[in-house]
């Protein structure tokens, strides 16, 4: 763990600096965000605003890149639960990130079918091509970010496109049958964007 100086409790919300942060605004509660959340809560029966925790966190993560303590506390206040409760939810799901990814976040499937089609090698290829240090990735910090902050990578479990491996999800878009050449194309495409 990179937070050796912190105790295990403080480490649960400690800020992990990431070069990707330059591409996202810092967390703040805007009127738009409040309106979005108010609308989300209507998706659930009266008094069940706790259900909106995940959707709220998704919006926060999408807009601000990752979930920081302020957003945890704000989500708790919006849904009427304790901050500890939201923390328990956030730390459960691999899809909720407490470290900011790069501007373009590669999620590469590592499960059997993709692994059989070469995902392990592909992971290293992407790391190399995006200048990400694979050694920086471990259970506690599953996301590796390139020094420029443009790219990040995370090995994830099954992306459910098993017949067309290896699969890589870049932000919201899925790329299948990814080869090293295709990685070059993807990088080139996003560099232009």
């Amino acid at each position, binding site marked *: 763990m990179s937070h050796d100086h912190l105790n*295990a*409790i403080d480490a649960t*919300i400690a800020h992990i600096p990431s070069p990707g942060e330059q591409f996202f605004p810092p967390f703040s509660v805007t009127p738009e965000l409040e309106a979005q959340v108010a609308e989300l809560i209507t998706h659930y029966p009266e008094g069940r605003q706790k259900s909106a925790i995940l959707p709220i966190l998704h919006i926060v993560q999408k807009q601000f890149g990752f979930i920081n303590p302020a957003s945890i506390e704000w989500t708790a206040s919006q849904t009427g*639960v304790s901050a*500890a*409760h939201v923390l*328990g939810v956030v*730390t459960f799901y691999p899809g909720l990130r407490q470290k900011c990814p790069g501007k373009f976040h590669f999620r590469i499937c590592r499960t059997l079918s993709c692994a059989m089609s070469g995902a392990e090698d592909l992971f290293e290829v992407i790391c190399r091509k995006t200048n990400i240090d694979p050694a920086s990735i471990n259970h506690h910090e599953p996301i590796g970010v390139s020094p420029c902050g443009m790219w990040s990578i995370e090995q994830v479990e099954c992306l459910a496109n098993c017949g067309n491996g290896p699969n890589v999800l870049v932000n919201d878009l899925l790329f299948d049958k990814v080869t090293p050449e295709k990685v070059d194309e993807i990088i080139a495409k996003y560099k232009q964007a």
Partner: protein
Amino acid sequence: MSEETSKLPKDIAAAEGKVNVQINGTWYQFPRGMRIIDACKSVGVHVPTFCYHPKLAIAGSCRMCLVEQGMPPRLAPGQAPSYDAQGYQHIQWMPRPIIACANTVCENMGIKTNSPLAEEVRAGVLEFLLANHPLDCPICDQAGECKLQEFSNDYGKLKGRYTESKTKKGKNLSVGPNINLDQERCVLCGRCIRFMRDIAKDPVLSFSQRGTHNAVTIYPGRELDHPYSMNVVDLCPVGALTSKDFRFKMRVWFLKETKSIDVNCGTGTNITIWSREEQVYRLTPRQNDEVNSCWMPDEHRLNYRFINSPQRIPQPVIRTDINAPHRASTWEPSFSALAEAIKRVPADQIAIIASGRMTNEELYMTRLLAEQIGTKHVDIVSRVKESDGMLISADRNPNTTGAQVILGLENPGSQLEMIRDGVQRGKIKAILCLGEDLTSPEAGFKAQDFENLNYLFVMDHTASDTARAADLVLPGVSFAEKFGTMINVTGRIQRLNKAIEPIGYAKDDWTILQSITKALGSNSPAMNAVSSMDILSLIGQEYAALENINWGRVGDCGLQVLETGVTIPLIEQEKNPQG
């Protein structure tokens, strides 16, 4: 065959709302809907558990209570059930064990807690629990009362096969003013989380992470500082949550357990006093579903340090000259000196200020003393604050109800002002102060009031400003050093048991009162009593409300003797969860 004998066991049981269940080969009847675990417990069959707690929501997650289970075979359409000679159906045992905490008994069910399957499953769960456990029992406070340790000994494999690296988690984390957390020792039963969520209603604890990295945590910056937080220490089956107060103080197997009650308020929370060699090390709540369920407020739990404090008065002290310092004395001369002093003051100028913290027996002796002297100026100091809505009663005296009954006080504390006034106007010249500090805000005396007195006698266990002003101080004992009974706010009489011997030369309060009354010439039957149990029996002969009361009848969990109409909020909530 008569109609009666042809009835099957299932029909006989059903008539009473019960079902027949075979546990380890023996048939029993249990009420329908009873949890298997409770059914087993009620017939003396032990089922080990971690996450199950009778007062908390069922989690079913530790899997420690897995038992082998069977039901009658499923019948083919049209097939009639067959019964054995005793009238039970054949039990078809299931290959898959079930948890005894979440499942309830049903008709013709079979349970085995001692079968090879059940034993193997239990050993397996324990092996898993120990896989990532640090095995630091030698430095763990829980050792000796650790469920993981006990169950591993009773049901485990005794030899671990896990040789891989262990999952690392946080150790020695302060999570609140009174509690430390060790995440590696935790078995993730979640009792603490459920207690804080459902009982304390302060959900500061949560699980974090997932899988093998799961850990109990608190939100950084928050504290587990609820007034009832230390109950999680009792709830924790292992050494994950430990009391800072008790940490590293004493191995639990050296401690003696004494059943008693909390004397910090009128609830009379049932407690266990843990002591060794005349030293009290901790107090823990003791289950009593009519009084305190399984819980206790932290403030009361931690209020025991005075027992062994240097402020205790170890022997009688006397002052013969107003300007001279107190000097140590012995008991017999003190009694005769006091008797002489009392006799010198006219009876109607003597006031006795007793205490709502006294036991019934002490109050009874106080009554005899007052009668012997012939004074009517007898009252207690009342302490009424706000209830905390859980267990702490508005009445901070543990035995106001007893004082009402024994001393016949209709409105305890109401005479106090008259006495104070009497002192100030010179109408009261002597005060016998029993177990109170009159300069406390509740009693309301000022130090200069004592200058109007000819004689001030104090019986107390700890030095106070009143004691410092007294002509004679006789050292009584704390709640941990005596036997006695008190009546709580709901009208339940409960026992105090003696955990340690009196500190120094201190004497049990009732014997002090007995000696004084005797010295004043009383020949009441109470003068021959040799224990507070004798006094209680005398009380039982004298008071209609406590008719035939005696030590044995009160029992460990007390006896409802009055209906005061006062309730304990937490108990009401437990009995009517919806309300």
